[in-house]
């Protein structure tokens, strides 16, 4: 038996197909993964993401601690409620995890990390915190519900009119407390919406109320195709400790300039200054024939071989799409070949995202 979120019984009752995800029994879909995908692109869907771990970071040295810990620069977080995406790196620049950090004040942050890496992250973060006056408090008392889609915010306000005041003026990537809820305008689908962090005891009631308001329950299956279309990496699949953010399409999340010395910086600087031909890159692929690319399939290019890290059928494009780690010399627009069960299929190198905000962004 796997670990269960506060919504486990609710999922069972709604007929979800459950499967193991990083040691958790999670809903994969409630009938049709593709319908759930379209609901989020066109209307509003919700995901139970309570398996992810929220951590509160408090203390007088919370800011210098995060400046040292994270590859992205928390100094960018000037306004309360602002959120930042960052990698957590080891000394070699390898990716331990990717996370979102929310800023409330210089002595209080909230961090949300992946489910499968939570224990590892916590151990690493505790170790690094030893020399700082900063305290890490895991928040397993919270449930997290991601409500996503063009109608998501409106439906949250319809179900809970009281939340509108606190959340209406939130720009993307900002969060605000409303009583004991944290409402964030963030997500992992490429659509607008909120992520709600709320007391676990309220989770079922809120889930059911949102469902009554027309928010479709969605499983992790559609969450995966939505994030892939949106060009967002999945930890453990598109990146791990054997690669750096620079090789994972995440150079934009690394603040390499300036004096700030963060864990992994030296390794990233050395990699940045190495010849392009020795580097790898994470890029998008659009399959030009029918078929479905899958993780670990080989990609043959004029500059050497690479590998698919995530691949699927895209419900929005109605076509096979993938993220692939390829030699650094491969350029956008090039035709490469994917080896699918011994047959070679042409694919075009594209710059992700493939689709966001209901629109196809590649051709």
């Amino acid at each position, binding site marked *: 038996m796997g670990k269960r979120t506060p919504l486990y019984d609710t999922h069972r009752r709604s007929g979800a197909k459950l499967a193991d995800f990083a040691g958790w029994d999670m809903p994969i879909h409630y009938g049709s993964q*593709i319908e759930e995908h379209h609901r989020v692109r066109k209307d509003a869907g919700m995901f139970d993401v309570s398996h992810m771990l929220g951590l509160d970071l408090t203390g007088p040295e919370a800011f210098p601690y995060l400046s040292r810990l994270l590859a992205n620069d928390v100094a960018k977080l000037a306004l309360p409620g602002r959120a930042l995406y960052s990698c957590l790196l080891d000394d070699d620049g390898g990716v331990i995890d990717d996370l979102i950090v929310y800023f409330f004040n210089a002595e209080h942050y909230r961090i949300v990390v992946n489910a499968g890496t939570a224990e590892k992250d916590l151990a690493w973060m505790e170790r690094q915190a030893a020399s700082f006056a900063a305290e890490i408090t895991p928040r397993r008392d919270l449930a997290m519900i991601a409500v996503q889609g063009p109608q998501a915010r409106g439906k949250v306000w319809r179900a809970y009119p009281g939340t509108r005041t606190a959340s209406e003026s939130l720009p993307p990537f900002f969060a605000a407390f409303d009583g004991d809820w944290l409402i964030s305008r963030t997500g992992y689908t490429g659509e607008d919406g909120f992520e709600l962090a709320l007391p676990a005891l309220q989770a079922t009631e809120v889930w059911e109320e949102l469902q009554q308001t027309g928010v479709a329950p969605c499983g992790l299956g559609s969450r995966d195709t939505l994030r892939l279309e949106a060009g967002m990496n999945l930890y453990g699949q598109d990146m791990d400790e054997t690669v750096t953010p620079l090789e994972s399409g995440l150079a934009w999340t690394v603040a390499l300039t300036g004096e700030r010395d963060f864990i992994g910086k030296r390794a990233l600087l050395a990699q940045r200054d190495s010849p392009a031909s020795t580097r790898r890159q994470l890029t998008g692929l659009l399959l030009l024939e029918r078929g*479905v690319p*899958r993780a670990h399939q080989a990609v043959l290019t004029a500059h050497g071989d690479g590998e698919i890290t995530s691949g699927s059928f895209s419900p929005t494009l109605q076509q096979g799409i993938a993220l692939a780690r390829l030699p650094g010399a491969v350029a956008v627009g090039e035709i490469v070949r994917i080896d699918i069960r011994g047959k070679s299929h042409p694919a075009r190198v594209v710059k992700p995202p493939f689709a966001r905000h209901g629109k196809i962004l590649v051709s």
Partner: protein
Amino acid sequence: MNIPTNLKYARSHEWARQDGDGLITVGITDHAQEALGDIVFIELPETGRKLSAGTECAVVESVKAASDIYAPVSGEIVACNQAAVDAPESVNQDAYDVWLFKIRPADPGKCAAELASLLDAEAYGLVAMSEE
């Protein structure tokens, strides 16, 4: 669970039906389509291909996974269902109506033995249930 009693079943979740013309029509079971989820791609064998029972000869892919399809009997592929290739989701709608390919048995006696070694609806129901 929908498991028609007039069909024979392989443990690998294909159904087989012997028609009046002697051909064996093959598809995947309702349990298989349910387990796969939304089917988005089907690759069928070339007609004229000769194969023996248990040979991997087609692929059905859903959003989440690819599943190999095995020939339940020996013989020659004489027909493939292009309609299934063009509308893979139709297998989700009716897995017993949307067949994948037809095999002409090379040896009727051998074919009878191969069909006899497949599972009946009741036995397949137990296999499917054990995977639920």
